[in-house]
């Protein structure tokens, strides 16, 4: 299944958690740290890129450069070494916050440049570092704020990976048919139009078999998503919080 293959090879293991290794690392230079970071970045480069591209309205090359700069300079060199705010529990929230700040600064700097005609005045506000910079227009294309758009893109990355993973796991159990069934019902069908009976006819199974196969596939899906999310959180509490905020709100 060739679902959008940025960073997906469908074979990578899920170590206990990449994020906890990074978050609690004593030595960011260690190969272990680098490996875990690399794994997360490969996986989540795409949401960052697509938010810069679509929410902040950058051209394709520009967005790639900015995404590159964001990871190389902001994430690796500036934010990660600075330690973590406990409120920014998961890698997702960490990236999202850092990205919003990075892009706001980029926009602000550009605008300041424009207004001052190359002679920017310092912002004059002790309450806030910078003055009015409406970025609503930036997000208006999608009608979403940067945070929402980011989470949407993130969800897309997680789901792409999860579908590939469900397929792989079911195939490993010799249940290729189960995947086809699940795909038909939950991915393409839109369950309103499809009944178990129709599926049973289509796949030449009994209705009970259909029901059991779907139940199993959904369980596999749940485990796959949980495993994917688990890799970028720090512990069970963070996992619960992350699942809640991604799927239950």
């Amino acid at each position, binding site marked *: 299944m060739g*679902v*959008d293959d940025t960073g997906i090879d469908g*074979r990578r*293991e*899920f*170590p206990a958690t990449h994020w906890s290794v990074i978050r609690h690392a004593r030595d960011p230079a260690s190969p272990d740290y680098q490996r875990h970071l690399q794994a997360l970045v490969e996986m989540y480069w795409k949401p960052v890129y697509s938010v810069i591209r679509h929410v902040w309205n950058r051209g394709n090359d*520009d967005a790639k*450069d*900015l995404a590159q*700069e964001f990871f190389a*300079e902001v994430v690796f060199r500036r934010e990660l070494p600075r330690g973590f705010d*406990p*409120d920014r529990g998961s890698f997702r929230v960490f990236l999202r*916050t850092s990205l*919003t700040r990075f892009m706001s600064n*980029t926009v602000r*700097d*550009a*605008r300041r*440049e*424009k207004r001052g005609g*190359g*002679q920017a*005045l*310092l912002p*004059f*506000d*002790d*309450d806030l570092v910078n003055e*009015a910079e*409406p*970025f*609503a*227009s930036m997000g208006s294309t999608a009608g979403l*704020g940067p*945070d929402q758009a980011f989470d*949407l893109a993130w*969800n*897309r990355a997680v*789901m*792409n990976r999860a579908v590939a993973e469900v397929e*792989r*796991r079911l195939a*490993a159990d010799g249940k290729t048919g189960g995947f086809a069934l699940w795909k038909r019902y939950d991915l393409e069908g*839109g369950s309103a139009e499809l009944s178990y009976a129709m599926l049973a006819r289509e796949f030449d199974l009994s209705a009970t078999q259909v029901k059991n196969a779907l139940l199993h596939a*959904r369980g596999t*899906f*749940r*485990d796959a998503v*949980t*495993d994917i999310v688990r890799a970028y959180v720090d*512990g*069970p*509490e963070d*996992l*619960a919080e992350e699942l*809640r905020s*991604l*799927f*239950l709100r």
Partner: protein
Amino acid sequence: MPAPNDTAERLRRLMGDVLDEQIATAAVTAGHVTQAQLDSARQEQAEVMGEPPRLAAILMRRGFLDDAKVAALETRLAADAFVRPSLETTAEPPPEVRAAAQDPARELGHFVLVALIGQGGTGEVWKAWDRRLHRWVAVKVSTAAPAAGSARERFEREALAAGRLRHPGLVPIHEAGVDRGRVYLVMPLIEGETLETARMSARRALEVVRAAALAIEHAHGQGIVHRDLKPGNVMVDRTGNVYVLDFGLVCLREDEATQLTQPGDVLGTAGYMSPEQARGEAAARGPTTDVYGLGATLYHAVTGAPPFAAPTFAAVVERVLHDDPVPPGRLVPDLDRRIEAVVLRAMDRAPARRYPSAAAFAADLGRILADEEVLAPASGVAQRLMRLIRRRRGAVATIGGVVLIAAVVASARGLLSAERREAVEGLRQMARVSLESALALRRAGDLAGMRRLRPALVAAYQQARGRGAETAEVEYLVGRMYRALLDDDEALSHQERALALDPNSTSSLYERAVLLSARYGRLVDTAETELRLREGDRPAAETAWPELARLRDEIRHDLARLQALGGPPAQTAAAQGILAYHEHRWSEARVQLAAAVAAEPLREEAWQALARAAESERRFTEAEATYTRAIELDRGYLPHAIGRCELRRRLRKLTEASDDATAVLALDAGSVEARLCRGATRTRTAHDEISDGKDPTPTLDGAQEDFDRALAARPSAAAHAARAVVHRYRAIFAERRGGDPFPHLATAEHDDDRAIALDPAGATHWASRARTRTRRGILMHLEGGEPGPTFTAAERDFAEALRLDGNRPEFWAWRAELHFYRARHHVRTGAAPDAEFAAAEEDMATSIRLYSGDGLSYVRRGEMRTWRGQAVADAGGDPLPLWAQAREDLDRAVHDLPRSAEAWVTRARLLTARGLRLGRGGQADLATAAADLTRALAADPRYAEAWSAQGHLRAARGDRKGAAEDLRRAAVLKPRLRHAGVR
């Protein structure tokens, strides 16, 4: 095939449904919801058209679940998922597994025994690697003789029957096996601490043992008895889940008799064994044996010692059979007597007199946790108050007793009629008992219970006064009682009366000093916030606010007199420490107060002064730790928590600060101080959110609610001023999001008006309204409107603020901003801007003078002068004198901030403008500008403005190629710069 967006969204919802289903099912397992209730919820869900509600939402709406329960279930499920091995793991086993596997003795079935994590009478527990499923497990290996044939089959059958028990508090058994004669059981590896080693409060111990009891009850329902309950078998994992370990392992034992012959290592178990087990009776197979084990486990958890200890195994058994355990209350004097009663009933030597079931035992623990009477002992309502006191007797006696005796001695002079004497005696008794009760309840965090004592106090006081017993002692006692009840104002008025009746009452002198000292502390917090002082800068606060200096003098006066009169010794150390604090001898104060609290850990005023002294010495970590310790000792003494909230807020530990205030509000929803602290904390959080590009609206809503409620309880200028900031932040955020900021500014101004009306002498309030108006004017200017009248109104406010307090550098800097924007407006409308530019400069100069040595101020003024010069040049005048002054400012700026790329770039821009204007004579300026930019880029090579400025400079000097390269780099760093381009 890229997944279409709607598929991703559909899958997201599917995942939500699956999780919801999982939570609902777990709610049934946990006993929150019955299967029938869940089915009914499902039915409702199925009947809804369109987007169906979540099961959890339905169950919450119907009152079966609440947020806390759902959160607990979610965390629990997540914890399960977290330890579950990933199915596809193909990774190499961890290195320690490979190392252990070198030793053939560590191989057991398809497990590698990696580390020994426990050892007991019946076997060893290992952390082991499961080679087949690639996961960590716990393997218990029996040291008993290998079972054979049918005995072995029975073992496996029974072990697995026990292991199949499904309950969150029971550890399932994955498998049982025999390898080379070794019998073993495999369980999930749970990492945590058992009650044998874990340290916890009595309350937490109750919760843990109660959870264990409920798990045991479940097993009993399946006909399975544990028979080896002890602290080492109750484990709490990292997320606080409680597990009963070793369930079903009883079948690993050959029989009770063999066990009794085990040497040494079963000693631990023997101390928790029921008498009938020790005798090897059949009754030992009943549930009451586990009730005994639970009681013995709770005994250990609250006392830290086993119920029976003796040097040899036989001696332990002897004691189990014939002795009663030492009552836990004798080992822990302030133990809640109800806990003792429950433990002793559970451990009764006669099984029939114990709780009939683990559930009944758990129910009584639940009653203690809900602060209800237990069923364990016969109890009369009349005993309740005394029990309450006894609960904390050890602690209360020190302070309450000593203080009261001192009071009695102090006022024994003067003759009283018999009736009056009787009334005084009655009040004395009353005050003594209720003071002890109040303090005990407060320390346990039960403020509602504490406040229930107030009417009795008021009645006794009125009765005493009605009989003409107006004595200093009566007033002192009542005042002391009010201080315990956290009503400082009422307390102070009684102590004033006491001192009017007897100016030499040492107790009242001390009390008054303590009360004034608390008031001083609250005022200092406000002053530091309002005056933006450095944290802990008491001398500056006292200079700025005469009220503080006055309070300090009164306190010193009282304490000095107290020293001369020689007050009761218990107070002396604390009094001296508090005096030293108010005389700014902080390190001395810390030493004395630390000694005072070491001697008397329950003297809250000493803790408070200790924390404040540490703050004044800028030992913030120590101050915070001091508050933390004080709060542990006296949960209900709200000033500690509020003090910590204020400290943390100013230290920018915003989450913790907010939690402190929330904790106070949970105890006392009417606490205005907590509202103000939390509101201010949230405001600051919103500030950070805006800076981070987040939506601060929910946080601002929270802050506003806090201020609303604080104002509803007690209108104050400070709260109005604080709420005005909330509105200003809303305005700023609206501006950024393209919304309409003006309504928010109008609301802010309304609060500013109220603050000024309540406290017209408060310079801050005038300055605040001036800022609100300035901001409105700036917005009008930026939107192309006419800000003139608004700026004028702002200017009037500034004038008043500066008349009231002309020494605040930020007022001047803010007014400079007003003038600066007015000048810019003039530039746009073609009016002469120079006077406004000059006024802005002058204000900045004043600000700089008051705030000496801030490089950033020079950057700002230098930049203002650069603009002003440009305006002069545009009007055909000579900008050079102004630019010379700008140069001075910026020279100073780069000198003060040599590592600030911004400072260097600002000077470079001035010099570029001037160099170009001077033409051939400007070469030196241009060269310096180039050098400045080199410095700027050395300080921050990623500073796009520096590359851009360098590009413009090079273009001006004819280096087109270099310019193009610089501008390209600037554009890479900040892509928007590309549009600025070379002109």
